[in-house]
Every structure is written in C-alpha cells, then in structure tokens.
C-alpha cells in the first residue's frame, strides 16, 4: 500500500466495492479498489471502458443510487467517512468540497439556462450570497478559466458555446465553491486535440491557483503522462498497478500496463510494422475469470495466475502492482527510459 496513507491524506479509499444486481446475482463492477490522494496531488485513474473508473468516481461522490446497488468499503474524505453518509449530509460536501466535471460539456449543462445562471446556482446552493455577488464571482471565475469576454459569456446558453469554452465553464462551475477535491471524468475526451492541450494545461495550473487536488479519470495514457503525479491503472474493476507516473511509464510492473503502453501507435521514432496488440478484449464483469482478471490475455500467464487473486506487491518506491511476476523474481523489463524517450522525440 502507498506509504503515505497517514491520516492527513485528503482522500483515503479502502477496498471500495460497487456491485450491481443482474439476474439475481450481485456483480462487482468495482472490486476492491484502494488508493489515497494527497493535498494538491493530481492522480490519474486510467482504464479502458468497463474498467470501473467512472463508477469509482460516481461512488466517491455518492451519486450511485440505482435500485439494488451495493457500495461497500471505506472512503474517508478529510477524515469523514463518505460511505453510508446520509444523502442530506453528502449534499453539503458535493459541489462545495468535492466537485466533478464530466466528459461531454454539451450535455452536462441544463440546456434551458444560461451558463452564468447555472454557476450562480451552485454558489448560492452553498453560500448565503446575493444574486449580484454570485454573478460577480461567476464572471471572475469564467475570466480566470480563460473564457474571453466572461460577462457576455455568462449570459449565453450552453449550445451557443464551443466545446472548449463549455468545458472551461464547467471547470469554472466546479471550482466556484473552492472545493478541495476535483474529480474530472474524461474531461478532454470530447474535445479536439488542440483544445485538449489547453484544458489539460488549465487543470494542471489549478494546483497552484486554487490549491486543488485532482482525480483525473481517462482512458488516454498520453493525457496521464502529461498531467498526473501518480497513476493508477484499473483493469476489470480492480487495481492493476499504482505508482508515481514517471516510474510507472518508465518501468511498468503489470503486464497489462506494459501491453497498453506498447499498443499505442507511436508518434515519434520508427513505425513498427505491426503494433504489439493485446489479444482478446476485457472480460465482462459477470464473466470475470477466477484468479487474475487479465490472465486470459496475458502473455506471461501461468497456473499461479488462474488460481488465486494476484498479490498486490511493492515493486519500487510507492510503486505497486497486482501481479505474481515480481514475487516470482521475474519482473518485467523496463520500457524506454526517460532519456531514450527524449532522444526519440524530435519536435
């Protein structure tokens, strides 16, 4: 487990399990996820679709209330236990202490109100301020987020703004009550690459300007490498690997992380004739194999992998992987070192 799991961590998640009912069974979509997030840290939560990354985020916010869903484990936020906290109490944290931004800023705003109205609404839901004071703050926030002509933009409707501006407005709204934690669920996936770069830079800057801690959920390894201090890789609802981003990218300890990184077509250096793809596709949660969920696709899989869940072992400083290989004394070879990566990259 990460060494810094002391009580001063902003967020401490232990053995989080979210199960959905299906055909008379409880299917764990998130299956025992643990991690900590410190003040002013940006933690990347990476995984493919169905890995449980978005469900994890919604569970942290207490936003999963579909009939029959079970959320167990512990989520301690600033020392308070969130799991089992009554909705009414959670509501005061939501939007005020923990804010969230979503993938598609078009559908994430209510279409019939102006951007400004919706930001004002959040401010006034948590603080006793007048409409005018709220609007002043809204305009300032929009300006801070790099929205040109914030006064006019505040009076525009969501559909009248471009995707990039909508996402900036979304971030402004999330930050409106100065939350300690910002959960960003695929914040740039719906955006163009050049706009994505702007938004990622904005998110990085929030640490200094707003002292924010960010949980960044994404499927894009490139986004994580550029943005996050620490990275957690999820596979089929479980943590596959956790570590400081540079260490994790330089020498991934889990075959899934390594395979995922290898299968990304490179933009620099020689083009491989074939991409080293991972065969097959992730299992559905209800068909998760016994033992390591990745074993059917893993080139290193052997008997030990199919019997029991792999141990979560330390492979470096604050670097952990759920894999039997390190214990068996057969760690994965390192990927490109940072220095070689630099050489390959010729802008």
């Amino acid at each position: 487990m990460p060494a810094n799991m002391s009580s001063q961590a902003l967020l401490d998640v232990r053995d989080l399990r979210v199960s959905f009912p299906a055909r008379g069974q409880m299917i764990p979509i998130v299956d025992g996820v643990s991690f900590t997030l410190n003040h002013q840290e940006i933690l990347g939560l990476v995984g493919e679709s169905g890995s449980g990354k978005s469900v994890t985020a919604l569970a942290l916010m207490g936003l999963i209330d579909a009939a029959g869903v079970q959320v167990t484990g512990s989520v301690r936020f600033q020392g308070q236990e969130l799991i089992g906290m009554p909705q009414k109490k959670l509501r005061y944290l939501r939007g005020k202490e923990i804010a969230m931004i979503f993938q598609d800023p078009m559908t994430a705003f209510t279409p019939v109100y102006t951007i400004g109205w919706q930001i004002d609404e959040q401010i006034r839901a948590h603080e006793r301020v007048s409409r005018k004071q709220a609007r002043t703050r809204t305009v300032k926030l929009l300006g801070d987020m790099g929205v040109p002509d914030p006064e006019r933009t505040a009076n525009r409707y969501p559909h009248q703004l471009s995707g990039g501006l909508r996402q900036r407005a979304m971030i402004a709204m999330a930050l409106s009550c100065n939350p300690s934690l910002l959960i960003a669920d695929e914040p740039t996936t719906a955006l163009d690459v050049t706009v994505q770069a702007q938004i990622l830079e904005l998110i990085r800057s929030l640490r200094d300007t707003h002292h924010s801690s960010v949980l960044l959920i994404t499927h894009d390894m490139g986004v994580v490498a550029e943005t996050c201090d620490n990275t957690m890789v999820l596979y089929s609802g479980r943590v596959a690997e956790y570590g400081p981003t540079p260490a994790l990218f330089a020498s991934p300890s889990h075959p899934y992380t390594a395979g995922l990184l290898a299968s990304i077509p490179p933009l620099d250096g020689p083009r491989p004739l074939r991409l080293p793809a991972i065969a097959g596709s992730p299992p559905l949660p209800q068909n998760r194999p016994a033992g390591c969920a990745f074993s059917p696709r893993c080139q290193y899989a052997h008997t030990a992998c199919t019997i029991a869940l792999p141990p979560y072992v330390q492979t470096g400083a604050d670097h952990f992987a759920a894999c039997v290989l390190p214990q068996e004394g057969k760690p994965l070879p390192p990927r490109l070192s940072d220095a070689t990566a630099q050489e390959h990259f010729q802008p």
Partner: protein
Amino acid sequence: MLMAALRRLGQTVFVLFGISALVFTVFFATPGADPTARIAGKNASPQTMQKVRQEYGFDRPLPVQYAIMMKKLFITQDLASYADRGELVVPEITRAAPVTVSLVCGAAVIWVVLSIAMGTLAAALKGSWIDRTLMMLGLIGISIPVFWLGQVANLITQNRYHDTWLFSWVPALGYVPLTQNPWGWFKALVIPWVVLAVLFIGVYSRVLRADLVALSGEDFIRTARAKGLSPARILIRHGLRTAMVTFVSLFGMDFAQLVGGGALLTEVVFGLPGVGRLTYQALTNLDLPLIMATVMYSAVFVVLANAAVDMIYLLLDPRVRDAR
C-alpha cells in the same frame, strides 16, 4: 421577426383555404347529393329551391360556388342556417364561443395544475406505492368515457343527492354568462370543468412522469446532483423546466381542438350552448352552412394555437430560438 410573422400568416391562410376547400368538396360537390335540397330543407317549395339555388350560385361552376360560400361566411357574414329557418350562422358561433372558451379554460387550469402535481410527485417517488397509485388513477381517468362520467355526475348532483347539503348548491343544467353573474358562472361550470379535465389529467400526468423519469438519466441531472442541489430543486428547476417543452406542445394542440369544438360531448351532456353542441346540432340536422362555419372556426383555432405553441417554444427553449 416581421418575416417570420408574415410567413406564419401565409401558412394560416393556406391551411384555412385547404380545409375549407376540402369541407366544401365533401358536402357540396359530392355527386348525387343536391346541396340545394339539403339547404332548403325537407318538402321545400319550388320557389324556395329556386331562391336557394340562386343565392348560393348552385347553377354556376364549382369555384364560383366556393367563392360565394366564402364571401357569405367571412365578408358579408350573412350565411344563414336553413334548418333553423334563417338564423345567421356567424352570430350563432359568436354567441356559442364564450361558453366553450369558459368551459375549456377552466378545465385546462384544473388539468394542468393537477397533472403537473401528480406527474412530478410520481416521478419524485418513482417505484413507491404513491407513484403506482397516482399512475393507476391516471389510467382510470384515461379509460372513463367523458359522456358517461358527465351523466353520472348529473345523476348524482341533479337527481339523487341534489337535495342533500352536499349538492344543493348545484344549479340546473345550462350556462350563466360570466359578465352577468360571476358566481353563477362558476357554479354552473365547475362540474363540467372537472368532468372534462379528468381524461387530460390522466394523459398529462402519465406523459410528464415518463418524461421526468427519462430526463433523470440525463447528464445535466447528474451535474445538478454533483453540484449539491436539493432533490426538489433538481426535479423542479432542472427536470420539470426541461420537460415543460414537450408538455406545452401537447397542451397547445389539445387546448385548441377543445376550444374548436372538441368538447362536444361535455357540452351536450351538461346542456352548455357552446360550439361543440352547435356542431353536434349542425351534424344531426345536416345543416350545411352551419357545418361549414363550425369547421372553419375550429380550423382557425387549431392554426392559431399552433402559432402560439411555436411562440412559447421560443420562450422555453433557447436552442429553438437560435435555430430560427
């Protein structure tokens, strides 16, 4: 804006022309049916027949007949009912319209308020027994025929229990003009309002609940929850406000067809001399000029309501505003 208004006016004229031409063709140009005999009534003398034929130009080509009919209806307004021996139809409609408008407006207030309350409550308590009860009530409301409900209401309030303290205030069937006696107007109409509203309460509350439940899965509702808003505020300010867009379009059309004469059964059952009852009389007597006039009146209302709904759409949905 002016262009839009003009375009709308053009559309209105076009629709009215289409409907009037259709009705005219059905009733006046059907082969084998002599409109002269119909208009002149049974056992009319040859002189009357001749007079009618000349007045309506039935000895002239069809387009001319149509033009004469329209002139008598809209310009000179001297189109006369023949079943009622010379009663002018346009004033007849002007007299009937306030009755219908009174009936429909009152019912509309009831059904809008109640269906919004029921639909929202059911959506908020989705899956609970309250939700199931309300929706079951709605279904019952939809399935009860309005004339049956009206007759039962009459039976109870006019006959069986009229002399009990509960229903002794109920006046005899009929209409009291609002300008003469507002309290009498209210007393005369309150039971017809409720009877007419029942069906619509059922339909609207069910539609609204379904809309709200569908909206609750939308991203923006999730955002509203992530903002820490209260469930009531999320449901009303975000859910209901967005659902109003469909609600209003549904309402516009129903309201228009009722004002246009669709409340016929209610009017007949409660003896209200409105446009619906007028249409009913015209149809039973095959009173062609009156049929023509009521149909045109109804068409005007539907087209006007359509325009009104479009305007409200603009107010409710900024996306529509920009698409113009």
